[in-house]
């Protein structure tokens, strides 16, 4: 059942580093993270890897396996052939701290720039009434485990540090959509999505959707509808007028 696999793991600190070769035992049913742990326990005790739940629930263990963003705790060794060399590297879009661990603070900064849930002032806790069908759209986005692989893969920032300033990435554009679709949120998020968080940079390539381990339809269900809402707003003369007169309309479209 068990065999020896060939692993190439990126090792190094800050900017410096290189791929190191390892030969390591693999047993039935194991995932890539198990193999990294075996390397730690037997050959490289200071090999840095981030993980927590080992059950695909926390989004800590994102790395790139043979160039593809993956959760290492959910990538089974049986998806590779026994003689394949498996290359494990850190996420490319974020600066490396050490080995497979990257500095993902970009994501936390973006999270803080998005205005929080804004319910009407007069609804008290316990008084919320929402139908299942009305919460489902936002619930899909709240399945997000913040693995940041969608932000890692999006070409707008993947090799373009210069865009990081003005682009929140799919994860946080989706957060804006989530709040915009929340039945009780009264903030106006359309202009903000476009102007402050770079929704316009997204040219709907769907790479983010493809890597999402939660299978959230980021592009189809969050980004495209959000773009439509922005467009509706721009060309709807009534809304435009409303905005002019009352500064900010709190009415929601859609």
């Amino acid at each position: 059942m068990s065999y020896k696999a060939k692993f190439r793991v990126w090792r190094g600190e800050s900017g410096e580093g290189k791929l190191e070769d390892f030969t390591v035992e693999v047993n039935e049913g194991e995932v890539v993270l198990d193999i990294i742990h075996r390397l730690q326990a037997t050959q490289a005790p200071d090999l840095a890897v981030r993980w927590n739940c080992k059950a695909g629930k926390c989004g800590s263990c994102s790395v790139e396996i043979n160039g593809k963003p993956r959760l290492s705790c959910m990538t089974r060794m049986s998806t590779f052939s026994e003689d394949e060399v498996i290359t494990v590297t850190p996420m490319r879009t974020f600066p490396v701290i050490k080995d497979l661990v990257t500095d993902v603070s970009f994501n936390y900064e973006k999270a803080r720039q998005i205005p929080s849930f804004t319910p009407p002032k007069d609804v008290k806790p316990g008084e919320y009434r929402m139908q299942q069908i009305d919460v489902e759209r936002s619930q899909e986005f709240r399945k997000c485990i913040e693995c940041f692989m969608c932000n890692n893969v999006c070409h707008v920032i993947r090799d373009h540090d210069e865009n990081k300033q003005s682009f929140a990435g799919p994860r946080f554009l989706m957060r804006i959509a989530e709040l915009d679709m929340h039945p009780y949120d009264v903030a106006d998020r359309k202009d903000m999505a476009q102007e402050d968080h770079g929704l316009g940079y997204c040219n709907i390539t769907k790479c983010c959707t493809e890597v999402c381990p939660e299978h959230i339809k980021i592009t189809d269900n969050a980004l495209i509808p959000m773009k439509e809402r922005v467009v509706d707003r721009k060309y709807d003369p009534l809304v435009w007028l409303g905005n002019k007169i009352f500064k900010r309309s709190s009415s929601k479209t859609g």
Partner: protein
Amino acid sequence: MEIERQQFDVVVIGAGGAGLRAAIEARQQGKRTAILCKSLFGKAHTVMAEGGAAAAMGNVNSDDNWKVHFRDTMRGGKFLNNWRMAELHAKESPDRVWELEAWGALFDRTKDGKISQRNFGGHEYPRLAHVGDRTGLELIRTLQQRVVALQQEDAERTGDPEAYIKVFAEFTVTRLLKDGDAIAGAFGYWRENGTLVVFEAPAVVLATGGIGKSYVVTSNSWEYTGDGHALALLAGAKLINMEFIQFHPTGMVWPPSVRGILVTESVRGDGGVLRNSEGKRFMFDYIPEVFKDKYATTEEEGDRWYTDQANNRRPPELLPRDEVARAINSEVKAGRGSPQGGVFLDVSTRLPAAEIVRRLPSMHHQFKELADVDITKEPMQVGPTCHYIMGGVEVEADTGAAAVPGLFAAGEVSGGMHGSNRLGGNSLSDLLVFGRRAGAGAAAYVDRLATRPKISDEAVEAARQEALAPLERTGENPYELHQELQRSMNELVGIIRTSREVSEALGVVGKLRARAKNVGAAGGRIYNPGWHLALDLRNMLLVSECVARAALIREESRGGHTRDDFPVMSPDWRRKLLVCSASEDGQDVTVEEQVQPAMRDDLIVLFDRDELKKYLTEEELADFDAVAKEAS
């Protein structure tokens, strides 16, 4: 290297449900608050909780109220619970859940638009607020986003988002620091670069979660090395109920690398049944005397219960966890287990495939991805896994205050609330209720202080040396020690215990503690997991010793403590709590018996005499009779 210094009013250690709720409270009370956690922000172990948060909102069955919830909780804990905590918990959970909704949480809904509630083991009515089977994620994300909302408010007010609440993620605390008897701060290191930091703060809230990583088969993540339990002990606080560990009946058993990962109880709450290799629904054979009148005795009645709860009793698959775990253990031991050493848990024949995917999406995903099993077509194989520790820091119910002034604890690291066994769903609500109370307790304590405590240079120097020591040694491999500890605890202080095996475990732990002094960590201070584990070992060993010592002393079986040599529950033992304390250097652990105060009169009369007589001594029953007479 320089030691960094930080000053705060309240330092919260832990960013799970309890820690975040405590920090939010402290900040809302105007205190400058730090949140310290070992993982990234938003990834604490709470994220893994699946089934839901128990709160008697009465949305699905309007007969539910705090008294029913209180009774269920006490029953589940076999009446060993700190009844004041159980009371506060039952009364305040609904408000804490509703508050989450006002902060943006989106729970699943009932037809009339309220928060939906699901059935769970030991809860008389549908009571768990939930979001599919990812309730913990919703809870932690909502609290995380609430922290961000407060930071945005503070940015607007002061220009600095971190003026009043600041998160230090991937930071590990290794020591609490004191000034005389009272807390003065905390000491630890950044995982990212190994920099050491002293936090100066008059109040510290421990919210570090559990201890599962001392066992091989566990549903717990790497964070669960019992740090908070150990930090409290070393600071002079006391731990209670450490012998009570919950083995969740249903963990995955195959493949080996995922052994222990949780299979949520909602599978059974939503209709899943347990069968042995003979195809028999064996739980009907394991209904204990104390629960005989509350559970269905035939499959037909059990099945009817899912659609008509008023006229039928619930199926025994939904007995409290300790009962189900022991039953599975016995079936496997009797040779009626599944091929991979568990039993069968089946929903595939009970619900339509689409319904299974809708109600149990993570379970469907988890089995498909990790075990190549499609739970809509075939049964799962499951077995017990170390899941939750009922024991923890002894605290004052109303404020979360520990015996050391300035020290507070909430969540899984605290003890008492769940008695000898926790009901599913009662942890998430516990985190919210007592997280808030501990945050408020800490804030009030800071307000009462006349002067700020000071940290001595010697204390900092000792903490520094202790933290760096493994890096300066070329000793044993910490991973090997850890594995030995895990195997021994699993085998010798597991679900079923005997005096001989527990004594043997104590011997092993003693030897491992001696060896741990020589553990070395190769490599430097930057994100070095070998070093981190070497430091965590101290905590796991100390906590394991507490568990084993208490387990040896308690000569009865109750909840999460089953002694093969003392198989029955004893009313005399019910009133006794086992309290662990340690010498300052952590070398000596002592366990003492302490009497649990009698339940308040207005609470005890909520129970029937017939039920109480299964738990209380004759003397206590006589007291009850007097109270009941007066009340009537």
